[in-house]
């Protein structure tokens, strides 16, 4: 593995860790804790929206850096055989799922939640969380494929 590949792979992994970590923290720790902190039936608007505003930057840093370094890695070291090609297709599939769910959240779900009633917000956030679980699982699988892809190369 060349020095350029090592640097790109490091940046790629950092971006994945930041994004996956942000989603994990939001979906599995912050959300249940926030819901426990308010009266039953009340949606924790301030906390959830506040968290969404802050996580925006880390998530979009992750998206941009993952796609940029992923494409550069593909250029400097394209897949060489059918196994690598399949792994690369899997990686892009998982990254596409993550990106699509995130963009849907930013442009559709978050604006609606900001203007929702308590009941509407709970429904919107429930489906948002399902997509967050999907993003998290896709991220983990994509990260594992990345590790296997490069360990396989080594």
């Amino acid at each position, binding site marked *: 593995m060349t020095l350029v590949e090592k640097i790109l792979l490091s940046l790629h992994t950092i971006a994945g860790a930041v994004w996956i970590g942000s989603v994990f923290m939001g979906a599995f720790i912050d959300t249940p804790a926030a819901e426990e902190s308010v009266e039953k039936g009340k949606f924790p608007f301030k906390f959830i929206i506040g968290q969404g505003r802050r996580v925006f930057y880390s998530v979009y840093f992750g998206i941009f850096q993952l796609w940029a370094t992923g494409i550069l890695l593909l250029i400097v070291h394209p897949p060489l055989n059918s196994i690598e090609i399949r792994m690369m297709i899997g990686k892009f599939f998982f990254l596409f799922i993550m990106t699509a769910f995130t963009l849907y959240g930013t442009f559709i779900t978050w604006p609606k939640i*900001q203007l929702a009633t308590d009941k509407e917000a709970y429904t919107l956030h429930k489906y948002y969380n399902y997509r967050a679980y999907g993003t998290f699982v896709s991220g983990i699988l994509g990260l594992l494929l990345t590790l296997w892809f490069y360990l396989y190369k080594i």
Partner: protein
Amino acid sequence: MNITNVTLKFPSQFSGYINNEKTAQFEGEKFSDFINYLDDTFGYIKERLFDENGELRPYINFYIGKKNIKTLQGLQSEVSNGEKITLLLSRAGG
């Protein structure tokens, strides 16, 4: 009481709750009068904009002209006839 005419620039997520109206005509000269008009006319508007303490949700930003009402007198801000009222939501994501 004076009648105030305003033009509205709202995101589609909010416009849907007010029948996509682009203009409004309400009695009074304060921003609170405008909100009362929306709530009385379309229903459930205050519930979408205010928290349990009756304060505007912190991430919701209304502008009268180019000025955020938070930098004016909040809900008591004066709205001039012909003014444009804009709603900006916070960028959030993930």
